[in-house]
């Protein structure tokens, strides 16, 4: 096993453990958000190993830097350090969710149990996934997509403001 493969398994274990910590932590929402940060950073490491350098940087900046901070802001704004929900959700729902997730997981894994098709090129071309190539692709082939994304973000800003505003006059 080479160093990248060992690093991949380390990041994978870290991502799965912290994702489980996020979902199964039923008392502290802040700890859930911190576990989410660890998952995001582990995934960014895997992106680096897969030679998606720009995506890894954007992952750290947007997910670990902005989205989780937004979550933390809301948790602290609402003063939800410990959620005090009454226990006793129906066990039927939990068992059903577990069964459903097991079925989905086995189906997803079965899809790829036959192995993936042979790749076009095992070695990525030089500069693959760097800011230059991704930028050229974004601003030539996908320029309409960039414009749509800007419109979407504008709509999200206006929508979030209107939703969170106390009184609309």
């Amino acid at each position: 096993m080479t160093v990248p493969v060992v690093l991949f398994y380390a990041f994978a274990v870290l991502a799965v453990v912290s994702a489980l910590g996020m979902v199964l932590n039923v008392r502290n929402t802040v700890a859930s958000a911190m576990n989410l940060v660890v998952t995001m950073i582990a995934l960014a490491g895997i992106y680096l190993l897969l030679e998606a350098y720009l995506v890894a940087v954007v992952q750290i900046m947007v997910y670990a830097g902005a989205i989780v901070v937004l979550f933390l802001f809301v948790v602290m704004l609402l003063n939800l350090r410990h959620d005090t929900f009454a226990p006793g959700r129906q066990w039927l729902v939990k068992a059903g969710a577990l069964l459903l997730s097991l079925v989905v997981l086995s189906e997803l894994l079965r899809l790829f149990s036959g192995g993936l098709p042979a790749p076009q090129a095992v070695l990525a071309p030089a500069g693959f996934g760097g800011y230059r190539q991704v930028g050229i692709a974004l601003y030539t082939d996908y320029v309409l997509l960039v414009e749509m994304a800007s419109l979407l973000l504008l709509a999200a800003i206006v929508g979030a403001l209107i939703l969170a505003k106390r009184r609309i006059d």
Partner: protein
Amino acid sequence: MLPLEHVIGLSAILFVIGMIGVATRRNLIVVLMSIELMLNAVNLAFVGFNRLWPGTAEAPALDGQIFVLMVITVAAAEVAVGLGIVISLFRNRDSVDLEEVSLLKW
């Protein structure tokens, strides 16, 4: 090169963990975080498949990574609007418990 089957397997496992969170948790904020986790799992699959077919030096195929960037954009918009909904819900109901949001439930 990394074992791509294992990358896709990790993606499936993370997706299912997010699904368990969406299905079982009652805290609306944690449900939103679980949705983020599912989106991230899909992103991982996109990046992995893009690494499998990287194209050539003259014509690099970066469609998977462009897709990931767009998913991240949509996720950011979704979190902004979702947390706005959480705040206005908390203002009206004084709770973020999903069990109390049942007005449209039959």
